[in-house]
């Protein structure tokens, strides 16, 4: 109706620590905001003044160039000041605890902290103790909410509403924060999730998370709308977790033959970086069903949206011009 005012969703959240417990309404608001805000990334001047004067600190205690750059760029495109902090150059080597490091950061009065840490619950500990917003960029094997959000945005772009859609996640689901956040988020949005992997990585007890469990990729490839492949890094697995790379690719790898049996409009996704030849053959990774590069650009948009929603000024009635 022309001239009618929109009723936006309420947002009182201080942190984004994980998708578990985040409502459908909130996820929808983040995805819709991200879908709009990505227009900024296509303009000539890829910057808006929304978070001018705000300070965003990014603290990465685990290596990651891409996610870190994505968050840094997101903050910069919203005109915030960004301070980067990586474990290798920090005093954590000298034995400073996380809380001590956080207290030092607090002395600079940041508006938000983006943290990636090898321990589950680390962002939660800081969110409880400090007044600034905490965004979880990955805590141990627990959650990686912005990854799941960008995955869901990508799915939504192609599939529309996620209700009733079927998503397969293949790989080391047990130890994957990407998988866990996706499972929480997708189920909240009404999608069905089926996971597949070796018995060591995809144990039956995962059913308690509300997913179906299978042990061969062939059992999931045919009737799903999305196939999400997880990265396998043999050196980072514990002892006796898998057999050989050849057997893994044989049972769980996505190649053109298997893809041919999937739905013609199936989406192939991967959080990156891809081990070509292990999770996917190069043909599939670079093929026309793969939306991996969209995931990356959606990641920037989702992170901008989240920073905007958590830190932006509360605005009142849109008609006060």
């Amino acid at each position, binding site marked *: 109706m022309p001239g009618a005012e*929109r009723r*936006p969703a309420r947002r009182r959240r201080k942190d984004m620590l994980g998708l578990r417990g985040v409502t459908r309404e909130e996820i929808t608001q983040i995805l819709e905001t991200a879908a*709009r805000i990505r227009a900024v990334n296509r303009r000539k001047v890829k910057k*808006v003044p929304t978070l001018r004067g705000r300070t965003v600190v990014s603290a990465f205690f685990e290596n990651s160039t891409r996610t870190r750059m994505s968050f840094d760029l997101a903050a910069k495109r919203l005109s915030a000041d960004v301070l980067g902090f990586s474990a290798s150059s920090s005093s954590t080597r000298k034995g400073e605890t996380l809380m001590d490091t956080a207290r030092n950061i607090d002395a600079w009065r940041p508006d938000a902290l983006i943290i990636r840490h090898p321990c589950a619950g680390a962002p939660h500990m800081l969110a409880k103790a400090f007044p600034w917003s905490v965004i979880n960029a990955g805590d141990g094997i627990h959650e990686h909410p912005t990854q799941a959000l960008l995955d869901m945005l990508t799915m939504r772009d192609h599939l529309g509403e996620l209700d009733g859609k079927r998503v397969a996640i293949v790989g080391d689901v047990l130890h994957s924060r990407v998988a866990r956040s996706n499972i929480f988020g997708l189920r909240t949005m009404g999608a069905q999730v089926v996971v597949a992997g070796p018995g060591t990585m995809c144990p039956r007890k995962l059913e308690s998370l509300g997913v179906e469990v299978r042990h061969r990729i062939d059992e999931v490839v045919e009737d799903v709308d999305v196939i999400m492949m997880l990265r396998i890094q043999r050196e980072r697995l514990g002892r006796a977790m898998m057999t050989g790379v050849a057997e893994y690719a044989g049972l769980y790898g996505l190649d053109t033959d298997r893809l041919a049996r999937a739905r013609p409009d199936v989406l192939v996704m991967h959080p990156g970086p891809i081990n070509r030849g292990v999770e996917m053959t190069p043909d599939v990774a670079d093929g026309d069903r793969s939306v991996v590069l969209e995931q990356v650009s959606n990641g920037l948009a989702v992170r901008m949206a989240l920073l905007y929603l958590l830190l932006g000024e*509360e605005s009142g*009635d849109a*008609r006060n011009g």
Partner: protein
Amino acid sequence: MVDDNNAGRTLGMTAGEVQRTIRRLAIELVERLGDPSSFVLVGVVTGGASLARLLADEIGRVEHCCPTVGSVDITLYRDDLYTGLEKPVLGDTELPFEVGGAGIVLVDDVLFTGRTVRAALEELWDYGRPAWIKLAVLVDRGHRELPIAADFVGRCLATDRSDRVHVHFGDNGGVHIDSTAEAG
């Protein structure tokens, strides 16, 4: 936000008056700016976007040639610190023309403090350097906080600072002013 229990809702303009004023504004735009293909109308989301569309249609009826219409959503450029509880969803900024060198008529339904217009100007500048920008509004309700004036005004309405002004287009439309019981 409409509170049905507050002190008063007065009618600023009837639906008919709104439609006639839009017609008059359209003719004024063409009279002063000339050929409709030489300028574009950019509506400020949301009320201004509807008005821009209606003005373009009206110009089209008279001149048999519509100016290009675009929209600009200023949510990411706001500077105001209202203590409302809800965060607006982002609207669409669509500028289907080359901003650099363009003659732009910025359109909004209500001109109040001027901050929306300031934000719209800043945003347009991030797309390019227009040749000129003029401002057309349906209602000027006063209480300016910035040195901004409209070039094309439909109607001036006297309001209190705390009033809320609602504009609706169409046959059941009109301009309504809601006053709070204890005006500050």
